[in-house]
C-alpha cells in the first residue's frame, strides 16, 4: 500500500517516471493482490483507457494505465 500511495503522490506532482517506478515496485512486492491482478488486466487489455488524474487509493491497475496514458500523450 505504501508504494501505491507513493505512486499516487508522484502522480499528483506530475513526476510520472517516479510514479511508474513506485507502482512497478508495488507490483513486485505484491503480485498476487487483487490490485496487482487489476494491473495485469489493465496491461493485457485491447486498449489503454485514458484516465484522469487519480485520487489517492485508486486501484493499482488504473494507476499504471494512467501513467502509461500520460506517457503516450507526452510522446504524441
Amino acid at each position, binding site marked *: *500500500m*505504501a508504494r501505491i500511495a*507513493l505512486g499516487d*503522490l508522484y502522480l*499528483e506532482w506530475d513526476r510520472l517516471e517516479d510514479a511508474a517506478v513506485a507502482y512497478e515496485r508495488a507490483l513486485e*512486492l505484491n503480485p498476487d493482490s487483487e490490485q496487482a491482478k487489476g494491473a495485469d488486466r489493465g496491461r493485457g487489455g485491447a486498449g489503454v483507457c485514458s484516465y484522469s488524474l487519480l485520487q*489517492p487509493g485508486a486501484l493499482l491497475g488504473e494507476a499504471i494505465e494512467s501513467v502509461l496514458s500520460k506517457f503516450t500523450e507526452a510522446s504524441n
Partner: protein
Amino acid sequence: MELDPENADLRLRYGQFLVPVDRREAVEQHLAVVEMFPGVPEYRIKLGAALMLAGAGEAADEEFERAIYLDPLSAVLRSDIGGANLAAGRPERALVHYENALELDPNSQLYAFNLGTVHAQLSTQDGRDEEHFEEAEALLQSVE
C-alpha cells in the same frame, strides 16, 4: 436495546448506524455509552468522532483530550483520533495526532504510513507544498 440498555457494544453499533440518518441521535447513543463507562478512552474517541460528524468540532476535541488524559501513552488512541479527524475532513488536526502516534511508537510502519498519506494529501490541498511533499515521500519510502 430496550432488553439490554447497558450493552455498550450494541449502543455503539446503533450509534454508528444512525450517523448518516440522524446525527443528533447518534451522538446521544455514544454519549450514553460514555456516561456508563466514563473511564474507557476508546468510547470517548467514538463519541468525539460522532460529535465531529454532527458539526460539534470543539466538543469533539474536548472528548479527544479527555481520552488522551485517560491513556496518555497510547499510540493507538492517538492514531484513532487522527483517523477520526481525517474522516471528518480535518487533515491538519489528523496530522498532529498521527505525529504523536509515531512519536509514541516510532517503529510502527502503520503510523508512518498514516502520517505519510496525510502529508501527501496536504501537499496538494491548497496549491503545492514542498515541505509536505518531502515529508510524505520520506515516510512512504520508509514503509515496506
